[in-house]
């Protein structure tokens, strides 16, 4: 578990793990991934009751977080969700709830009760299909009277098929803006994508002259701080999911090395294997350390929150590949089979590495944050 947690947070995380193990273990995730089973809305109302979707929502709308530190609490849930490859992109729903809490109109805030309870889910459409993660990526906005018309395509929207609402980033007159759109808005369509990850599904959000009223704007046009905050939260929560998945994948591999025998000894007794495991565990610990630092900085909104969030996404994104590859190597042939869970982790990690900014994008962002 990520360190420095209070007793309340520990209980929150342990309850989450128990729920996942009894309700949606990796064997269930696999059946959903193979389309042998669909996730019903019950999963989301249950996690709504557990409070996973209410962390960024104010109390008067049924929200709250166990420790009063929503980013850290959400990080603990994200870690457990990553460990067990939980479906349903709740990072996007939590970020949308945070956006509405911080900048939503009265009408938009009415949605918070449903988001907090898991009765409605939202997704955040930020990047474009080409891999840009700036607000302006992929969608053009023109003014039309007091309202706006949105056109273009957002890419890599996580679990769009479950979302009743989309938070769409775009630029108005060159300034960043956020729009809240219902999934049934005329001209809005979801184009499902095939992809590497089997546990989350991805789609393009296609907007064909979608006319929205001024009341669809969340926060201020050009209100740069809100979009920046959302990016930091989305990045560190994705990192926390990745840290959970990396840790579980490594634990699985260590267990394999302790039990698998060859040449009359367990393979974990060979120095070639031990040294690889030591290097992989260093990557795991470094990932935990930078994730902890980034979650804390984003929670406390320290001046270095932006760079730590990006550094964490960049580092853990690269570490995810190293750990996935190393764990596959140490498993040998069995790790290359469909029936082994390893590939579910490998696929998810390679994808999470890109979602809300791949390492190269965040590295360039770090340079810009420092004025280079």
């Amino acid at each position, binding site marked *: 578990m990520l360190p420095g947690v209070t007793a309340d947070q520990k209980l929150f995380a342990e309850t989450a793990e128990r729920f996942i193990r009894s309700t949606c273990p990796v064997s269930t995730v696999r059946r959903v991934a193979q389309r042998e089973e669909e996730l019903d809305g019950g999963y989301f109302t249950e996690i709504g009751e557990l409070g996973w979707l209410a962390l960024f929502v104010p109390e008067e709308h049924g929200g709250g977080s166990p420790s009063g530190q929503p980013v850290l609490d959400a990080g603990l849930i994200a870690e457990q969700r990553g460990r067990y490859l939980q479906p349903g992109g709740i990072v996007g729903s939590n970020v949308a709830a945070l956006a509405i809490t911080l900048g939503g109109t009265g009408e938009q805030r009415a949605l918070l009760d449903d988001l907090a309870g898991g009765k409605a889910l939202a997704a955040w459409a930020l990047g474009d299909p080409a891999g840009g993660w700036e607000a302006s990526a992929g969608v053009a906005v023109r003014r039309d009277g007091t309202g706006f018309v949105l056109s273009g395509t957002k890419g890599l929207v996580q679990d769009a098929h479950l979302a009743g609402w989309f938070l769409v980033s775009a630029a108005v007159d060159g300034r960043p803006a956020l729009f809240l759109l219902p999934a049934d808005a005329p001209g809005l369509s979801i184009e499902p994508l095939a992809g590497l990850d089997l546990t989350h599904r991805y789609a393009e959000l296609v907007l064909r002259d979608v006319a929205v009223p001024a009341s669809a704007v969340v926060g201020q046009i050009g209100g740069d701080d809100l979009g920046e905050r959302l990016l930091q939260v989305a990045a560190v929560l994705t990192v926390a999911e990745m840290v959970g998945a990396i840790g579980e994948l490594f634990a699985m591999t260590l267990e394999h*090395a302790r039990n698998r025998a060859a040449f009359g000894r367990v393979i974990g007794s060979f120095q070639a294997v031990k*040294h690889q*495991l030591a290097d992989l565990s*260093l990557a795991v610990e470094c990932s935990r*350390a930078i994730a902890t630092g980034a979650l804390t900085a984003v929670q406390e909104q320290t001046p270095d929150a932006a760079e730590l969030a990006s550094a964490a996404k*960049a580092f853990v994104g690269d570490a995810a590949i190293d750990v996935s590859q190393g764990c596959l190597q140490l498993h040998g042939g069995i790790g290359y089979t469909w029936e082994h869970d390893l590939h579910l982790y490998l696929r998810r990690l390679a994808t999470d590495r890109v979602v809300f900014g791949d390492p190269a994008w965040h590295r360039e962002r*770090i*340079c810009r944050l*420092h004025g*280079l």
Partner: protein
Amino acid sequence: MSGQTADDLEAYRREVRAWLAANLDPRDDDAPARLRGGDAANLSPERVAQQRDLQRRVHEGGYTGITWPAEFGGQGLTPAHEEIFAQESRGYVVADLGIAGLTTTRVCGPTILAHGTDEFRRTHIPRMLSGEEIWVQLFSEPGAGSDLAGVSTRATRTDAGDWVLNGSKVWTSGAYYADYGLCLARTDPTVPKHRGLTWFGVPLTSDGVTIRPIREINGSSEFCEEFFDDVVVSDANRIGAVGDGWTVARTMMVFERLGGDPDESPRHSGARELAPDLVALARRVGRQDDPVTRQLIARAHVIDLVKEQLDAYVAAQAESGTANPNLGSYSKLAAGTLNPVRASIGLEIAAAAGVAWHPEDTEASTTALNYLNGRILAIAGGTNEMQRNGISERILGLPREPAHDLDRPFNELRHN
């Protein structure tokens, strides 16, 4: 001192401030850092004498050995007092006795405090604190590096009860200006290797001691090798029991890991800057807008951040008291694997300018120097391979390497 209050500490801080202002010179922040292998890396006898004087002044003021026992010349105060002095003295010129100065106070001193006799501690600890005695570790040998318990320098007992040393040591940081060496020697080769070892404090001015600098790949000579030819050492200079040297060695290695980190990669102070050495380099070669260079700079910055966060994470775990005591190996392995990457990044950004420069352009040579020094922490103080063994066996719980040398007498083993 458990009864100290915040008021006591504030009073101490005021006292420290007043003393510093009255006795030391303010520090010039723009003074260039001493680079390993740089022109100013080696300490001249004049400079050492000057630094010893400065150290004595601080010692006489009562600000050395702040947490060390008062009966041996320390101040007997708390880590909080030590931290106050460290904070307040940051703006002043304090003694810099180089790497051997750090070895004296961070490794040899604590080891002697833990294992020396009262008489030995009363004699030497105050001198170590005052700068009168600079101590180094005589540990590695040409034939025994990672396998430290395999040292073969011999100490044989004379009829008078003293000892005679023969053998050689190597990789001793700063021995060329040191006064004493804490030396691990084999006193009984007929028992298994960990059991026949004993420590001695050896005056480096003794007859039969030869110290030679080793020229390093960077051209400088911070490390030395030493030869011992029939060097007579008094039994009063023995540290710990005869044959118990490995226990003392383990204490020493803990102190070494805690305090002896000679990490000389460029560090930012105060507010975090974006890899300042590399940004300056990129600007010098006009590549600050090149996307490839920008990726490299950010990679280096992420390395800096990850090392910083990992150290904090390991320290936080250690404070919890329940953590595995070997977690420090992660910080060491991170430095040992990431520093070389960072050093290579400099070379990559500099390209042609990193490998050839006008002779008078000392700034331009820094990148090459950093590259040459990049693997120091991958080897010194425990190689990456030793850290990987430690992590896999003591943290991950994997089986130990099969050993062929634990139960057989040292003189029956194959060794160098």
